[in-house]
């Protein structure tokens, strides 16, 4: 049901019955390694190219999610997924193997919550029994497309981020055991004229601010309603800017409950500059780490705000600014 301007509240809140999270070797050394289902020992994942390895991640995460819920592929009505690579081919190729009716998504690093929002809408309105949704990224595949060859020696500034290699998948169902998706706010594209592709956190912060504000207004709640408000990949500096935007607009958010997925994936001694990024970043943190915390009752209500920078290497070279988007989804323990 539409509530306010851009928020859906679900009358029959769908359940996230199972998840699948996979990562690469660098993620295995990271901060939330215990929350992954599977790690690959190298970036190639026994495939011939990074792009094929990328597809492999998605297939593996899907298989794990379905296996955990004991649901066969043909019971799943829709597969909603996306990634960063041109024409989202890694997702398309994974969908070819899955053979589940498929909708390809692109909101850059905000794809995870775009997928969860739409899937939840489908399931809640009775348009699907099961929907499989998620987002994935591959560090080397993204590096070569957006920046330089992986072995090229360029000096990155402190504001740059590290693309996560991994895939996070969630199986959304009508009923079952697990945390429920209660509402979703669809963000609008915000462009404040930022042009530096090595400072995406700074570019995306206003989009996160806009969507969270919209969500509060539409649902008529404030920050106290949630135990945790977590952004996708604003990283170190973007998170601070976003917090500052809230204080400046007389709506301060308690710093301790405003976190960022990009700051949770890796350890401090892993040199990832400002933090993690990529569609997989919010997907693996939400579906791996945060859902476990919800199930352990460490959190009761969380708001996940995935953030995406909608740029391409071409638009950067043509000196265009970076349009950004954020989608918010609330996940709650309902008894």
């Amino acid at each position, binding site marked *: 049901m539409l509530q306010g301007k851009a928020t859906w509240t679900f009358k029959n809140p769908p359940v996230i019955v199972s998840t699948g999270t996979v990562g690469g070797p660098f993620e295995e050394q990271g901060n939330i390694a215990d929350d992954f289902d599977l790690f690959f020992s190298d970036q190639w994942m026994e495939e011939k190219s990074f792009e094929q390895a990328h597809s492999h991640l998605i297939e593996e995460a899907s298989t794990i999610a379905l296996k955990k819920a004991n649901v066969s592929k043909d019971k799943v009505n829709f597969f909603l997924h996306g990634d960063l690579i041109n024409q989202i081919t890694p997702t398309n190729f994974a969908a070819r193997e899955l053979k589940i009716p498929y909708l390809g998504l692109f909101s850059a690093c905000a794809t995870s919550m775009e997928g969860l929002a739409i899937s939840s809408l489908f399931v809640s309105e009775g348009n699907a029994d099961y929907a499989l949704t998620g987002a994935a990224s591959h560090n080397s595949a993204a590096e*070569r497309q957006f920046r330089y060859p992986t*072995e*090229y*020696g360029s*000096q*990155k500034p402190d504001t740059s981020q590290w693309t996560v290699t991994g895939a996070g998948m969630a199986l959304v169902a009508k009923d079952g055991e697990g945390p429920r998706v209660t509402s979703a706010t669809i963000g609008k594209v915000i462009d*404040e004229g930022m042009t530096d592709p090595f*400072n995406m956190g*700074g570019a995306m912060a206003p989009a996160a601010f806009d969507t969270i504000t919209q969500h509060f207004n539409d649902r008529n709640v404030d920050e106290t309603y949630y135990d945790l408000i977590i952004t996708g990949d604003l990283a170190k500096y973007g998170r601070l800017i976003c917090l500052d935007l809230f204080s400046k607009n007389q709506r301060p958010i308690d710093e301790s409950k405003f976190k960022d997925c990009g700051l949770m994936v890796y350890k401090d001694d892993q040199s990832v500059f400002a933090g993690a990024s990529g569609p997989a970043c919010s997907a693996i943190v939400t579906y791996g780490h945060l859902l476990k915390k919800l199930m352990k009752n460490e959190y009761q209500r969380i708001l996940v705000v995935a953030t995406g920078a909608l740029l391409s290497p071409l638009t950067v070279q043509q000196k265009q600014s970076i349009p950004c988007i954020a989608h918010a989804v609330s996940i709650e323990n309902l008894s």
Partner: protein
Amino acid sequence: MAKEKTNYQKYEQKLEPKRPVLKNCIKAFIIGGLICVFGQLISTIYMYFFDFTEQTVGNPTVATLIFITMLLTGFGVYDKIAQFAGAGTAVPVTGFGNAVISAAIEHRTEGFVQGVGGNMFKLAGSVILFGVFSAFIIALIKTIFSYWS
């Protein structure tokens, strides 16, 4: 796009970390200098042990530096040194070598002709173009001046 900075850009700039330009310059000076000292060492060895003169030693020295760069790039070390050294590893011939070799490695999945061949000079191509072009202009200026004097 408007060239003028938006209010948000000005505000954001105050909150983002400043790039450590002076520190980067010093690091680049030291590492770049060390690469040059190393190059000089190779030249001296070649002149001392082999039959090279000061005029002919340039090419084998450059080839040796590029060979070492190739190994460091292939084993995934060069980009880590470059993160520290910045312009120090980019400006010497090693930087040029790394640009060519990293692109060649990157695109081998698209085949040898269209992948490696077509993309090898993706980054270094502009260096060659403007290098040759500037050399041409300088040569032209030199010719004109030597004609008049």
